[in-house]
């Protein structure tokens, strides 16, 4: 299927993503407030504890009684224990808030994305979707926890230290303020280095491990062609590049690390110097000199956090903006209230055109298929066959014209009734890593008897009884042959028992035995239903009532099968002579 080029996403401005944030945080207001209070209390304690130590030292200096000293020691101990409890409490609360809010966001986003058009999904890979529904949302949860807990906490702690220093002594206040601002500025100026380093490392390891993965996947080709030594010689330049570039990237990291380390130790030296100077000038006590040293050490972590977190904040904001853009996308499929009856229904396309962006895929196509007839669709890949079936199953909406099922315009049909009335077997069968049962019913509750009787009709009954309905299938249908997967898809449709069936026959090779089982099941599926089938072998359409050949978005031939077969001029007759409709398809493949 042709992909949409450059989907246009709605523009999102900063204030609008704040709405997303507040929507999901508002219900957690109570817990968030509690978290904030616990956080402030913990910061308060961190500021007070060094004071206790300073007082202790001063009392030792002034030859105070042992009792007083022990009292301070006990207070210190209590502060330590309370801080421990606060720590545990904030991490519990923070985690809980983060997961509550973001799981809701994940679910809403997932639901919303599922409602979008196939046009959107054809253009995205499942990997991308994981990134959107989980990756970006996790980034947002980081945003919440980092912004609230770390950045805010670090800021308040820094501010607290500075304010207290100014109260203690002006010189101490000036030196600590200058020091903190200077270090912040210095580290902020280096903030891009680790990011660059990380990007480079990611890039080179992608190359190295890409090489290894690719060669391991081709291990048989390499071994059977005796190309092991050659491959190893190709590995050399890859490893050299890896070595050179990771070393360079690492240098960047080390610059930042060593700089930070140097300024922090220099900070200790500075604190000792200022303390010594002020004590000698008699403007502070020895205890306060020790306080300066402690505060100089206390500011290390928040300084690092502020520079790192500000950096990460931008990334999280990126995720938030993307989420908001996605939330504004709307499906273009319209739905109505009219319910379709059960039983075979007519299918009709009336002057239908369909375009992806600028490319016209179907050009004013019209045909009518009476209830209970079987139509075989033939034509080259990319000619428009699949688009026609997707329009009938209302995965797409025509750019122009109307698609009618049971003489009702699909735009006015109630979606549940459409899904009951119309069943589709696609070429690639989409399976979940879930039980056989769930894969058949797509997570609907159905009785075992019902499921097994349907499986019997598709020839999978024995297989299912052997392995059991609760056996989990591997993801992507691991452990199932292509034929079995196809039969499973048939069973899904049998369970649904629709009046209209669309079948995209598998073009991949099946062995003759499986094919004959499939043929029996196909015959049963067709009985008493309206059928549109995209056929890849002529055998399949030998029982069709009508044949339609589609090319370059137009119907080039449509008529009763017997008549077309009898007309030597018809394309269908020519195909019969060639013997394989794939010849027709693959001439477009080269």
């Amino acid at each position, binding site marked *: 299927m042709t992909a949409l080029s450059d989907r246009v996403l709605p523009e999102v401005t900063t204030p609008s993503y704040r709405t997303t944030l507040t929507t999901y945080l508002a219900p957690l207001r109570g817990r968030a407030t509690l978290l904030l209070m616990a956080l402030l209390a913990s910061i308060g304690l961190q500021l007070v*504890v060094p004071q206790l*130590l300073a007082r202790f030292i001063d009392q*030792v200096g002034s030859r105070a009684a*042992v009792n007083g*000293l*022990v009292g301070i*020691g*006990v207070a*210190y101990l209590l*502060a330590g224990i309370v*801080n421990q409890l606060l*720590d*545990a409490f904030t*991490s*519990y609360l923070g985690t809980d808030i983060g997961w509550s809010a973001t799981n809701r966001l994940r*679910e809403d986003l*997932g639901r919303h994305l*599922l409602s979008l058009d*196939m046009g959107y999904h054809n253009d995205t890979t*499942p990997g991308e979707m994981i990134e959107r*529904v*989980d990756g970006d949302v996790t980034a947002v949860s980081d945003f919440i926890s980092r912004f609230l807990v770390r950045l805010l906490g670090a800021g308040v702690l820094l501010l607290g230290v500075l304010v207290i220093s100014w109260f203690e002594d002006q010189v101490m206040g000036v030196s600590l303020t200058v020091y903190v601002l200077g270090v912040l500025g210095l580290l902020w100026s280096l903030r891009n280095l680790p990011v660059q380093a990380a990007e480079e490392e990611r890039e080179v*390891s992608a190359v190295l*491990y890409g090489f290894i*993965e*690719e*060669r391991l996947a081709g*291990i*048989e*080709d390499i*071994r*059977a*062609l005796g190309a092991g*030594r*050659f491959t190893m010689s190709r590995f*050399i330049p890859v*490893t050299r590049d*890896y070595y050179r570039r*990771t*070393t360079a990237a690492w240098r960047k990291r*080390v610059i930042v690390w060593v700089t930070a*380390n*140097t300024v922090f*130790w220099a900070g200790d030296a500075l604190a*000792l110097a200022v303390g*010594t100077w002020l004590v000698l000038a008699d403007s502070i006590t020895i205890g306060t000199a020790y306080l300066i040293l402690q505060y100089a050490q206390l500011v290390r972590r928040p300084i690092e956090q502020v520079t790192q977190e500000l950096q990460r904040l931008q990334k999280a904001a990126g995720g938030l903006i993307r989420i908001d853009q996605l939330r504004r996308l709307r499906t273009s499929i319209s739905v109505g209230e009219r319910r379709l009856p059960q039983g075979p229904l007519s299918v009709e396309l009336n002057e239908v055109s369909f375009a992806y962006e600028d490319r016209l895929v179907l050009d004013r196509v019209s045909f009518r298929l009476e209830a209970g007839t079987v139509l075989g669709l033939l034509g080259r890949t990319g000619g428009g066959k699949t688009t026609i079936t997707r329009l009938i199953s209302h*995965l797409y909406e025509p750019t122009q014209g109307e698609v009618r099922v049971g003489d009702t315009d699909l735009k006015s049909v109630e979606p549940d009734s459409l899904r009951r009335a*119309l069943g589709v077997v696609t070429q690639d069968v*989409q*399976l979940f890593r879930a039980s056989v049962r769930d894969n058949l019913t*797509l*997570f609907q509750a159905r009785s075992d008897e019902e499921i097994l009787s349907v499986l019997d009709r598709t020839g999978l009954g024995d297989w299912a009884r052997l392995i059991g309905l609760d056996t989990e299938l591997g*993801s992507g249908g691991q452990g199932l*042959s292509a034929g079995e997967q196809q039969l499973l898809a048939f069973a*899904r449709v049998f369970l649904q028992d629709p009046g209209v069936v669309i079948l995209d026959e598998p073009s991949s090779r099946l*062995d003759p035995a499986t*094919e004959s089982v499939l043929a029996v099941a196909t015959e049963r599926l067709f009985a008493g239903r309206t059928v549109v089938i995209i056929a890849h072998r002529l055998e399949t359409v030998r029982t069709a009532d009508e044949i339609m050949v589609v090319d370059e978005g137009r119907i080039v031939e449509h008529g009763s099968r017997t008549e077309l077969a009898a007309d030597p001029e018809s394309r269908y007759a020519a195909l019969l002579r060639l013997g394989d409709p*794939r*010849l027709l398809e693959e001439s477009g493949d*080269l």
Partner: protein
Amino acid sequence: MTENLSTLEIIRELIRYRTGRFMFCFMVWALVHASPLLFGLLIGAVFDRLAGSADVAQTAWTPVAIFAALAIGRNGVIWIGDIEWLKHWNEVTLLVQRNLLRWLLEAPRSRVLPLSPGEAVSTFRDDVEDLLEYLENWVDMGGLVIFGLGSIVIMATIDVRLTGFLLVPLLLTALLTQALGPQIRGRRRAMREATDDVTGFVGETFGAVQAIKLFRAEERVMARFEGLNRIRHRAAMRDTVLTEVLRGINRNMSTIGIALVLIFGAGQLTDESMSLGELTVFLTYLPRLTDYMAFIGDIIAQHRRTGVAFERIRALAVDARDDDLLNRVPVSLQGEVPEVPGPKMESETFERLSVRGLSHRFPDNEEGLEDVDFEIGRGSFTVITGKIGSGKSTLVRALLGLVPATGEIRWNGKLVEDPASFFVPPRSAYTAQVPRLFSESLADNIALGQRATRERLREAVQLAVLDPDLERMEQGLETLVGARGVKLSGGQVQRSAAARMLATEAELLVFDDLSSALDLRTESELWRRLFEQRQATCLVVSHRRAALERADQILVMDRGRVIARGRLRELLEQSALMRDLWETGER
């Protein structure tokens, strides 16, 4: 088989790769980690002097100045140590990876990857990284031991009783962390599994959007998603809370320790058996000692993890000895990339291949291959046919040594000891059912290291009916095919693989089913060209009439056995299965 090495012996081998540089790193880091001993004493000296008489107080500047000089100098040392260590880290990583890759690609005997390539890559990356992390622990160890013992001795000379008393909670925390280790890992694993379930389900959901829409299963799918999310939320709580509480205990342990010093040292401080400076020595050492204690716990855990990691590396390399994996031939980081010698020319021309009793059992009860005999003469065309799962691919893969098999294979009457290393160009070449290309140019993919001339490449391309495709490619043979050949269509990948095989000019050509990506016309054309231009011997898996009609010999397979053999005409008379296959087969 030699004995497996112990974890410590593995580390010893890795150190020996560049003993000199490792020792240098070891010394540098010993200096860095042990230096806080001095810093503590200097801080003590500053405060003792400040507390003294006015004259003494003036001398406090000396330790302040030494402190500043040492602090700056220490960071210079860190800079050197860090860069040198990274070089060692990278080289040893590449060494182990190279040895492992080489073993998998070049070593004799059959080699089936026990894991998917993706999983195998995580062994290359993560398990090797575990080895290196443990090696790094050994670099740090010296300094940590010096600091640990040194600080305890210094504190003990100040006050033995108090020191002994302090060590108790420190040891208890370390033991607690150790004891909770499995618990933490279990919860971490549960969390990771819950996350995998969520992301896996999201991936599957959006891979199956069409089915979900067609069956209107949106709400049911979302309900399942919500269930998985709840499980993950719970797992995250259990994981975070335990880790955070433990981290908190570790962090706050030094506070508790300091509180103990204050409470139980108060007496000594008032009767002046302990000075103010000595108090600050305790205060400086305690937090660091707590950190180091936790680190010792980490090292023990890492030791165990490393053992497991190397076990996984061994499992991936199947029958390699540890010596092969730890082989210390230096990784090539400079100079010319050595030329690869072309395949040795076989002096003897191929006459006859005989196979007796070839059998293969799949480990998990899948149908294997049982007791297959056949002969192939020079210039003949042999087709293997049968239903899906009847063992056709297994037969050719067992013959070529791609999967382990038992039985007797003779090439011109001589017994083949190791099919895996024997069946390579110029004797034989092979195109897999799903051939793999590599992200290089088409020319490199086809030549695959044979020093093939332009002429030979052209000929191979023409034989494989790849020439019409090439004409459409702007860069011709220099076209980059992308990862695993994604830039080419399925048919083009298959034809390129056929060209790759034909470029080897091997005597025996083995094709495992070209029909999945070649249409009938192209396949017939390929056979026609091959017969007109080469007198190659072919062994082909196929169920197409174009191949069956050409065959000098057809082997009909069913459930791992050859149930009929002969020419098409005879088989159509004798074998019901052959008639079935012929009737339903594509013309």
